[in-house]
Structures are given as C-alpha cells and as structure tokens.
C-alpha cells in the first residue's frame, strides 16, 4: 500500500505552504499536513491510527462494524499509517476486516511489528500477520519493544533488500530502553523509530529526536494521549485562549499540534474507537502549528492543570 499521487501533490503543497499566520503559530494548508519519510522522501499524512485495545474486539460483529467505521473515516480523511502488532489480540484481524470492506485502499500505509522472543519464529509470525491483514506486503515492519531485536532486524533488512518490505523500524514505549534505542539508531540503517512522546513525557526531546533528525530516521509517536489518561484528565478544563490562534477546537488537538510541531516527528498515531474523535484528530494536522514559544506554553498550561 502506498500514499497515492493526489496525496503526494497535497504533500508538496502542504510542505511548501508553511508560513507564519499569527505570532506563535505557523500556518499550513487547509488540508492535512503531509510529512516526508526521511529515508525516501515519500509523503505520508501526519496523523496515523493506532490499534492497541481499541480494535481488539474479537469476532463481536457490532464492535467489528464500529471499528470498520473508524477505519473508513480514516481513509475518507486521507488515510495514512495504521499501526498494529501481533501483541494486540484480534486487532490485526479487525484491521483486515475494515480494509477488506473498503477494497484495500491504496492510501493506507501498513505498519506492523514482529514480536517474538525467538528470531526463528519471526518469518512465520510475519506471514500470519500478512494473512490477518489480507495483504501481500507491509509498508513498514518494526521490531516490537526491541524484543530479540538483533535477529529480527536481520530478517527485516533481508526482506527489505528483496523488495518484500518497504521500511524497517524499531519500537519502544513508556520511555523504556531509550539508551539501547539510541545505540541502534547510531549503528543500523533503520527508517523509523517509534516511541512515546507527549506533553508530559518529553524525554525524547533531549537526545532521541535530535538524533533522528541528524540520522534521517522517521519518528512515529505513540501514546500521544497517554493511552487516554491525558484527554480524560483535561476533559473538564477550559481551553486556553491560544487554542483559538492555533485553530484547535479541543485539548486533543492542542496535544497533537504540540507533537506535530516538533520538526523530527513524522507521524503521530492516536488510537480511537470513535469516528468523531478520529476526525477531530485528523483535523489537528490542518491549520496552524505552535512555534517553540507556544510549545513551551502548551506544556506549562497542561502541567499546571
């Protein structure tokens, strides 16, 4: 699956149109901002879709249908990266179901993971994952949580060399194993890292994000809402005045805009069970993004609440 030509054009427009609109905010196109994958320059929508918990609904026809609606809305809003893992129960099958209903749209960038202690089990697990999605090739495969990373990276690089895979990445979350991640980024020609980054978990800003920029590695941000804890906490808090300057209608959008405004960030992958939230998240990549001063204010504001 690849981002289509229309999106590539939009991407070119989006990237070209970044100019300040008002103090503290950078204006962008009316369309969702597209990012470039550093290793190839391929354009990709900045807001992707996670699937941990939200799409693990087994064979419940009602909840499967609801998940398929979220995926359909995601595609309608321009598509982009859908992230999953063999660790996420039945989420892979749910995504496969959603994509099948849509006829496997080309705007979806498939991001999967390999997650097994035995390197030898990697290829078998990847084959099963392909079956669950109902696709023949993944755009991106990541070593989940750095489990048996050396062996799996070897497998993934070999697949990429044979043209059976688009990109190679590694993931971590909750701020774990950043030292090892840094070493891997320095030594291996990976295309992506995935890590937890949000207004309250800002460890990556110190070393990993600058290193990703320096090495030309794409950054996928997981847990933008701390698994929903952040949005729940802010639910009854009033939006600050600067949200209006950014064109943000909700705390969720303020949080996503904060992440998107970091130059190292390629894609943010919030998960949701709700079409309304999906559209709201997608809209966060429209309009303005905060400048460094406003970024600091966002952090201070949320910390103080």
């Amino acid at each position, binding site marked *: 699956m690849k981002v289509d030509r229309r999106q590539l054009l939009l991407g070119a427009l989006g990237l070209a149109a970044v100019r300040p609109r008002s103090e503290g905010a950078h204006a962008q196109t009316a369309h969702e901002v597209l990012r470039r994958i550093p290793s190839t320059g391929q354009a990709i929508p900045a807001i992707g879709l996670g699937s941990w918990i*939200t799409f*693990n609904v*087994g064979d*419940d026809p*009602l909840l499967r249908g609801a998940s398929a609606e979220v995926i359909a809305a995601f595609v309608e809003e321009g598509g982009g990266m859908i992230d999953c893992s063999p660790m996420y*129960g*039945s989420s892979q099958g749910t995504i496969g179901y959603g994509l099948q209903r849509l006829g496997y749209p080309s705007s979806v960038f498939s991001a999967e993971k390999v997650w097994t202690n035995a390197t030898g089990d990697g290829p078998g697990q990847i084959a099963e994952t392909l079956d669950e999605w109902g696709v023949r090739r993944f755009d991106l495969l990541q070593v989940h949580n750095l489990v048996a990373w050396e062996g799996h990276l070897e497998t993934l690089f070999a697949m990429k060399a044979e043209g059976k895979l688009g990109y190679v990445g590694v993931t971590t979350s*909750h701020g774990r*194993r950043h030292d090892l991640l840094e070493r891997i980024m320095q030594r291996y020609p990976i295309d992506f890292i995935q890590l937890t980054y949000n207004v309250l978990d800002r460890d990556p800003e110190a070393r990993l994000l600058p290193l990703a920029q320096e090495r030309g590695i794409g950054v996928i941000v997981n847990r933008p809402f701390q698994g929903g804890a952040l949005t729940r906490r802010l639910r009854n808090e009033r939006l600050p005045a600067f949200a209006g300057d950014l064109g943000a209608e909700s705390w969720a959008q303020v949080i996503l805009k904060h992440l998107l405004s970091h130059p190292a960030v390629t894609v943010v992958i919030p998960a949701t069970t709700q079409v309304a939230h999906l559209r709201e998240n997608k809209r966060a990549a429209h309009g303005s993004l905060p400048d460094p001063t406003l970024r600091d204010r966002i952090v201070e504001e949320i910390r103080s609440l």
Partner: protein
Amino acid sequence: MTDWWSYRPSDFLLFSPTTYWRLFELENAAVWPLPLVTLLAGLAVLGFTFRPPTWSGRPLALLFGLAWAWVGWSFLWQRYAPINWAAGYVAPLFALQALIFVWIAAAGAGCRLGTRFTLSALPGSLLLGYAVILHPLTALLAGRPLAGAEIVGIAPDPTAIATVGLALLMPPGVERWLLLIVPSLWLSASAVTLLTLSTWEGWIPIAVLGLTLLTVRRSPAA
C-alpha cells in the same frame, strides 16, 4: 535490560470494558437457551443445599465438573481467548477443575453436604445463592443489558463463586481444599482484570475471596 519494575497491570490490558462485557451478551446469545438451563440447574443445586438427599453427592460433583469443562471450553477458549491470549493458558486449569470434580465423584462419594442446615453452612449457602441469583443482576446494576448477565455454568465468575460456595458447604478436608484452588486463582485473576478495567465489579471476587479465607480459617480441621 528490560525494566520489568516499570510495568503496571494496565500495560498488559488488551481490551476495553465495552469489549469485555459484550463477551457475555454474545456468549448468552450463542448458546441460548443453555443459560436458562444452567440457571435452573443452579437453583436446583441451591435447593439441595438446604436438605441434600443422600444420593446427591456424585450428581453434584459431576454437574459442577461439567460446568467447569463447558465454561473453560466455550467461554475461555472460544470466546475470551481471541481478545486475551492469556485466557488460552487459563482454559486448561478449568479442565483440571473439571477433572478434580470427576475424581471426587469417582473415588469418593462426590460433594457430600451436611444433611441439616446449620449456621456454619451460612457462608457457603450465601455464596452459592449470590452466584446463582444475584450475580447475574450486577449487569443491570452497572447499566448493562440483562442479555449480558453473567450466569452460572456459562460465565467463569459466577461458576467460580458457586464452586467456592459448594466447597465451603463440604466438610473440611483434602477434597474441599482441592476444589478451592482453581476457583481462588481464577477469582484473583478476575479481580486484577476488572480493577484494571476500572470497574467496581472487581471488588466482588475480592469480597468472595475474603469471605472464603475467613470461613476456612474458622472451620475445624478435618
């Protein structure tokens, strides 16, 4: 090095409360009218506890064995494991509990209960009554449809609670201890799951385990 200390139960939570509670609605619908049958069987067992016929020990053990085998296979293995791979590892324990019941029926006189209702039988009867009659109503209390009620012999929690109740009605001894192990393990796991899902129902298995502990400590030794 993996920082295992930094993991919390919520990091292992794979599904949402909505998905979890829907399992019972789906299971009841899929095996209907079995939930009605197991509910009636549960009520009959409850009736037995007040005046158990002398022949009831073996049928009781076999009935409970059947319930554990069925819940392990139909609910844990088929319904729950797709959203929680850990359930696949727990299902064999349900089979083991079924075998323990069969063994008790084959090697002894089954689940022999006291022939007259005494005060010391109160905790066991209460738990059994709660599992059969009241536990299904927690769905309504929590604002969920009755169609998703957790029914004894269909859902694991009321089956485990009823088993603990039955075991507490038996005279202290090896058989009683054997029957308490798997249900207690299940109820502990269930408490962790439900409390991680932030639902108040998690306190139910904790209360059951507390009452069980108090009762077995007060029972005279075999």
